[in-house]
């Protein structure tokens, strides 16, 4: 975890050099999105709720049903 934090800090520090808007065309492509499509996020959330044996939290309603809550 410490290594990961160090990598994140290093990459974040490198990001201090601003990229002008006219060079961000590739970042605007939907496939470059770093956030989930909302419906895909629901699928992902269900997996994590199941894995961690936890219902609710993370901004989603805590439904039962699958018996995994």
């Amino acid at each position, binding site marked *: *975890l410490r290594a*990961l934090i160090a990598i*994140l800090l290093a*990459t*974040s520090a*490198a*990001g201090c050099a*601003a*990229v*002008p*808007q006219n*060079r*961000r065309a*590739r*970042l605007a*492509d*939907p*496939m*470059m*999105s*770093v*956030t989930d*499509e*909302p*419906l*895909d996020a*629901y*699928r992902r959330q*269900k*997996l*994590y709720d*199941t*894995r*961690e*044996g*936890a*219902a*609710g*939290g*993370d*901004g*989603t*309603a*805590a*439904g*039962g*049903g*699958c*018996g*995994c*809550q």
Partner: protein
Amino acid sequence: VRSRFVAAALVIAFGSSRALAEDAKPTDAQILGPEDTALRIESITTRITGYNQYGFGYQSKAGPIGGPGSERLLVFEPQVEVVATQGDRVTHRIWVPIDVVTAASPHSFEPTPDVVSGASRKLEGGTFQWSTTYKADRGSQVALTSGLHIENPFRSWNAGLSGSRALADQNTVVAGSVVGILDWFDRFLITGVRNGRAERSTTMASAGVTQVLTPTTIVHVNYGLTVQEGELGNTWNVVPLANGERGAELLPSSRTRHALVGRMSQFLPWNGALRLYYRFYTDDWGIEAHSVEGPDHATPDAYALSRRSLPLSHADRAIFLHHSRAPRRHAPRRRQRPCPASVSHPWRQARRGRARAGFGAAPTLRGRVRSLLSLERLANGRRIVRPRPALLK
């Protein structure tokens, strides 16, 4: 005299030209017309997901006393999302996911149903979620969200507030959110008798940063804190006791969860994108989990296929690596089952005293702490679960 005359002429000329320019400058409304505040639907998206679960768990009654019972499960999950705008600044989003579950929980020895199958052998649960986003300016927006989840015998309400702000010429975006959730559901005895109502409250806060690193690289880090209070079990789960009988699953009444997510997207020269995902999770029940997804190689074609809402995922053949560690502190009396079958579950490890990996050997961390490695595949939007009988022996 001549210089004064020239100066006066300049003042008159520039002053009058500025006044004329201001008079002639058209307003935004004159160019674009009056702002349209009518509700306009921008998109309607649908998605269908299927879950197929095989496996056994100790809290299921569909098996011998003291042994795991069947937890066969099949879920279909249609979803629909409608996005509508109201003027230039307001965006509404309505989202309705529905879960259709067969064998909502494993039934007991035939023909006697257990408490769960009697309540919800087949189950339909649905959520209505609504959010409204207001764009204050080019780089700032705030959103309100609320939702209702209905499921027999379960009700859940949630409401939240979120906001984001772009900085450094939109190279950096910081965002935060707060959500409160209240669950209200029937309490059951393990004999199948309803025993009033139970409540659970959840408060969640998150903060994140998205940073452009290069013209082809973008990273995102997000931290989420979740605090839960109340009845954290479903009240009907059972656990095998030392005397050979079954008892109710008892859980602590509070739980604090921490999740840290890191993402990276890298544009590739052949018009593709390489995406990486990492999530670290820990809570005060002693669970720690590391989840890695990727590398996810997205292409425009694959993404378009997904956007057309076919049951295919742009994360085709993504590999999920889940690494968990056994609890070190208090171990509450809790279910001992794989859920779903291929998922490593620290509670089971704690109960059994040791962990066995589905493939290869389980690595040992810091002496007595055991770890478990499990592998899942997501192919074409369908989760493939591999039962691991060795874990259940």
